[in-house]
Each structure stands twice: as C-alpha cells, then as structure tokens.
C-alpha cells in the first residue's frame, strides 16, 4: 500500500514536448527564407523600375508602342527634341522572326543530337561529346557573334543565295535587292547555333528519363531503334522537348550582342528573311542607347520591359512543360 503511494508521488510532471525550433534555428530559417526570396524581389524590382521609367512613354504611346513601327526623334534647330514617336513593331517582328528561324533550324538538330547521345554514343566518346556541348553552352555571345560575322557569314550567304534561287517565289524568301549579307536569316542561324547546346542538354535529360523497362520491352518485341524511339521515347519526351525548345526560343529572343554584330540593324519592317536588314528589340536598345536623350532612354526602358515580359512568359511556359512532362517519365 504505502509502496504504491510513494511511487505515485515520485512521478515527475510530464515534460513538455515541442516541435518549436530553438532561437538559433529560428534565426537561421529566417535568414535562409529571406535569402531565398531574393529572386522574387529582384524580378519584382526589374518589372517595377522598368515600368516606372517607361511609364511616361507608354502613357503617350499606349498600344501603338507595340503595334506602330516608327522610332523617331525629331530635333529642332537648337537641338532640342521637337517631336518623338516610339513604336516597337518592326523590332518585335524582327525578334520573333530571328528567334523562330533559330528554333526551326536549331531544334531538330538539337533533338537528333540528343537522340544520338542517348541511344547511339557510348562510353568515353559519349562523355567527351557531352562535355563539349556543355562547354559550348558557356561560350559568351560575343564570341558567337564575331564568329558568325567572320566565319559563318560566307557559308550562310551561299545557302541564302541557293534558297533564294530555288524557292524565291515564296514571298519570305524573296529579296528586294540582292543583298544577302547580314540578314535575319544569318542572325537566325547564329542564334540556332547558340541554342543548340541548351536544347540538346535538356532533351538529353528528358530522353534519359525514359523508363528502361519500356525501352527493353519494345526491343524484346523486335522493334528497331527507330520503332522503339517512335513508340516509347517520343510519347514520353514530347512535352519536355517542346519545353526545351521554348527555353531556346526565350534565349534567342533576348539575345543582344550576337544579333547586333551579325545583323545589319536597321529600323524597318523586314519580312524577307534573306535580305540584309532588320533587328530585334535587344539590339535596338544597344544601338540607340549611346546617343539617346532622357526621353528616348525612357522609351528604351519601356522596350526593355516589353522584352522582359515576353521572355518571362516564354520561360514560364517552358518551365511548366519541362516540369510536368519531365517528371512523368521518371
């Protein structure tokens, strides 16, 4: 009796169990969380400040900033700005044109290269090729631009002339004057070469995730490599590859220096891809920035905002595609 009573008296008060982190951890988590938010803050600030600068121009131009194709600053006799019109139309067309050429030329090559790397290359050769392609992705755009200008231009001109000769009856391959140098076509080729390593790397990762059992099942049923790729790899990887292509598109749209070097940047609407004139939004910013007055700088900020939102949208779509379809294969 007494023994039991004593024992019950000795039972200590229950210890409080908590999942609340200690002070040091609270500080740590707070710091890391704040650090993690930086990308959000920076992206927000970019949108905010470019809008703040560009708003004065956007208010005047409204939608014609995107639809009009006139970029003019008229000065009176004293050198003051008398009248200015800012419309980004021609350069937006140029941006899409050169980026689409890049995607049309670059993506098939990149996807086939990725197929080669995943299903044909083996061992040290495969590792070497992958390293080379990663290295190429790290080349600066300046290098691509100058190489495109000095080395590629000759061969590209040859192709441009050939295209013009045989399919010149299609309006976009026609030229108003036989000037084939520094055309959107050549800029598109340089951009294609720039996006090939990126698209190849992403496609290769996607193809690598193809479930091995299905691949082997296809082979066991007697499929050739082509049949296996068509039946298994493509259905699994399609979305991810489209995402990779979109990422390439985004890169190609935002490229500045390479386009500026290769393309003859002229402010005019040019649908004829083989003719040596055109430009894109980024190269326009670089071209006009040097001698721009305060008003024009604001217009360039607005142009930057348009470019930023454009690439952000394309990137967002590509990211969603890669994540949704990349996971499925796992």
């Amino acid at each position: 009796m007494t023994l039991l009573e004593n024992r019950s008296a000795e039972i200590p008060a229950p210890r409080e169990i908590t999942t609340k982190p200690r002070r040091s951890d609270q500080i740590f988590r707070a710091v890391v969380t704040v650090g993690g938010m930086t990308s959000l803050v920076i992206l927000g600030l970019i949108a905010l400040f470019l809008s703040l600068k560009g708003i004065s121009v956007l208010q005047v131009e409204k939608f014609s900033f995107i639809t009009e194709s006139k970029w003019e600053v008229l000065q009176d006799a004293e050198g003051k700005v008398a009248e200015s019109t800012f419309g980004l139309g021609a350069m937006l067309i140029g941006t899409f044109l050169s980026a689409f050429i890049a995607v049309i030329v670059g993506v098939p090559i990149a996807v086939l290269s990725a197929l080669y790397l995943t299903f044909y290359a083996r061992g040290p050769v495969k590792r070497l090729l992958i390293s080379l392609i990663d290295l190429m992705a790290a080349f600066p755009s300046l290098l691509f631009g100058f190489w495109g200008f000095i080395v590629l231009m000759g061969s590209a001109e040859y192709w441009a002339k050939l295209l013009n000769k045989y399919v010149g009856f299609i309006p976009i391959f026609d030229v108003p004057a036989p000037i084939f140098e520094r055309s959107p076509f050549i800029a598109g080729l340089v951009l294609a070469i720039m996006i090939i390593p990126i698209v190849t790397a992403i496609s290769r990762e996607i193809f690598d995730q193809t479930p091995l059992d299905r691949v082997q099942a296809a082979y066991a049923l007697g499929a050739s490599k082509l049949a296996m790729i068509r039946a298994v790899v493509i259905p699994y990887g399609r979305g991810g590859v489209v995402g990779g292509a979109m990422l390439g598109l985004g890169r190609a749209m935002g490229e500045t220096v390479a386009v500026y070097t290769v393309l003859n940047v002229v402010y005019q609407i040019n649908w004829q891809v083989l003719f040596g004139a055109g430009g894109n939004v980024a190269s326009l910013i670089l071209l006009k920035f040097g001698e721009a007055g305060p008003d024009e700088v604001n217009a360039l900020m607005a142009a930057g905002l348009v470019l930023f939102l454009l690439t952000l949208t394309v990137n967002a779509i590509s990211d969603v595609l890669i994540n949704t379809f990349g996971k499925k294969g796992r």
Partner: protein
Amino acid sequence: MTQRVTTASLLVLAGVLAGGAIELTGLSGKLGFATAYFFFASLLIFLQQLRLRDLAAAKDSLLSSFALLAMTMTLIPIVSIVLTVVLKGYKGIHFGMFTNDMTQASVNDPVQAGGLIHALIGTIIMVGGALIVSFPIGLLTALYLTEIRGKLARPIKFLVQAMSGVPSIVAGLFILSILVIPVTQELTGLMGSLALSILMIPTIARTAEEMLLLIPNELREAGVALGATQWRTVSGVVVPAAKSGLVTAVILGIARIIGETAPILLVSGGADALNFNPLSGPMGSLPFYIWKAFLTGGTEEAYARAWGGMLILLILIFVLFGLARYLSGRKAV
C-alpha cells in the same frame, strides 16, 4: 567482314555521285559537296538495307544517319569557333599585353603597342564584385530549396528558373533604372558588378541546389540525431560536405558572366586606362576591349587585337570549365 567492305564501297560511291552532283547542279564548293555526299550516302545505305533486310531496317538506318549528321552539325561550330579563335588570336598575343593598357595606343596601332591589363583587372574586379553579391544569395536560395523546403520551394524554384532567362541587356537596363540614373549618375565598375550578379545568381543557385541534393540524407539525420540544431547541422555537416560542389557552382557562375558584354556596355562604360576603383569612373573589361577593337577599328591590327583578347577570354573559360569538371568529377566518386 564483307558487309564492311560493301559499306565502305558504298561510301566511296556516294563521294563519286556527290562530285557528279557538284558538276551538274547549282550546288558548289565544299559545303555543297558535303550536303550532296550526305544525301547520297544515306540514300545508298538505305537501299542496301532495303535489299539485304526489309523496309523497317532501312528506315532505321536512315534515323542513325540523321542522328550522326545532327551530331556532326552540332560539333562543327564548336570546332570551328575554337580553331578560329586560336588561329586568329595567337597573332594578337604578346608579352607586353599583360603590362600595358590602351592609354598610349589606339586600336589601329601595331599589335605590339598597348595591352589589355586594364581590361583584365577590370574584369577581375567586376566579376569579383558580382561574386561577393551573388554567392551568399545563391547559396541561401539553394539552402532554402534543399534544407528548409518550405511551402514556397516550388514557386522559388520557378522564379530562379525564370531569372536565368532574363536577357542580359534587361539586367543592364534594370541597374540603369534603379541605381545609375536616379542615384549615382555615373558609370562605374560597381554597377557592372551588380548587373552581372543578376545573371550570376540563378546559375549559382541552381548548381548549388544540385550539389546540395547530392549530399546523402543520412548525414543530415546523423547531425540531428546527435542533438545538433538545424543550423549546426547545415553549417557543420551539409555545407562542408558540399564544399567542392559549391566551388563548382561558383566557377560555373563566373564562366557564365565573364564574357557578358551587353550589360557592361550599358552600366560600366568602358575605359582604356587602368582603374582600380569600382566606385568611380568607367572601368574597362575584356568583353569591352574586344568589342571596341572589333567595332571601331576595321584594320588588320584591330582585328588581331580583338581576336587576341578573345583568345585570352576563351582560355579563361576553358580553365574555369576544366576546373569545374575536375572538382565535380571528384565529387561524384
């Protein structure tokens, strides 16, 4: 064995046919020959497979021809770029390059005059500044994604991805609009650093995240099981274990921005004289040095100078890349 002989003879036959095509059609030159050769080679192999086996095998051979072609087309620019830079660049390299700046020489002077020490120093200062800003932010972002894994992990991953797609010229415009025009009103090296760090942060964050994910969870659990707080686990176990991976992240970040030209042109101007102070006055940089020699010169000397600068830049990228490979290769073992 006989099959190999047949294939080899088919390839030779394709060469003959391609030569004929050059003679008879509008195609010409090496490029035309290569195209015609590929066309005939894949056609002949297709027909051979069709004769020996069936249509499925023939189509399969076509795919492998095309995959090989694509791989070759991917490799040609890499090889061509490296060869061009080396062959054109070595003429522009001389010893005085590393001791002189361009104050006493114009881009059209003989190559031996002037040098790029100002550009090299400028690039080092700007990249260093960008690194000081980007590394902590990149590491914290990576830690948030791998260690805290909060509710916001997915959106933040998305935003980092989005940030890596920001065009470089927009980064320049942003620094211009937030700092240069309203506050400093001067193009300086520091502004260049800040613009570059916008491009560097996503690279560092993504690589660091991948490297931290490689650390086995057992290490974290062991740390916590020994009674360490999360802070002690991360600082004492996870980060030291990922050290070489984090160095790789830094190196890849540097390689990403070292040749960036557009933002530098907008916010740090470009100088021909040595400038050690990132807080005042425009600062030269390797990309600007190349840009200026290429676009304002037009003479043989100016081109040689530009390619020489490009060679130095490419060597830097090669070294950085090799270092990253070496470190991450050791990590994987």
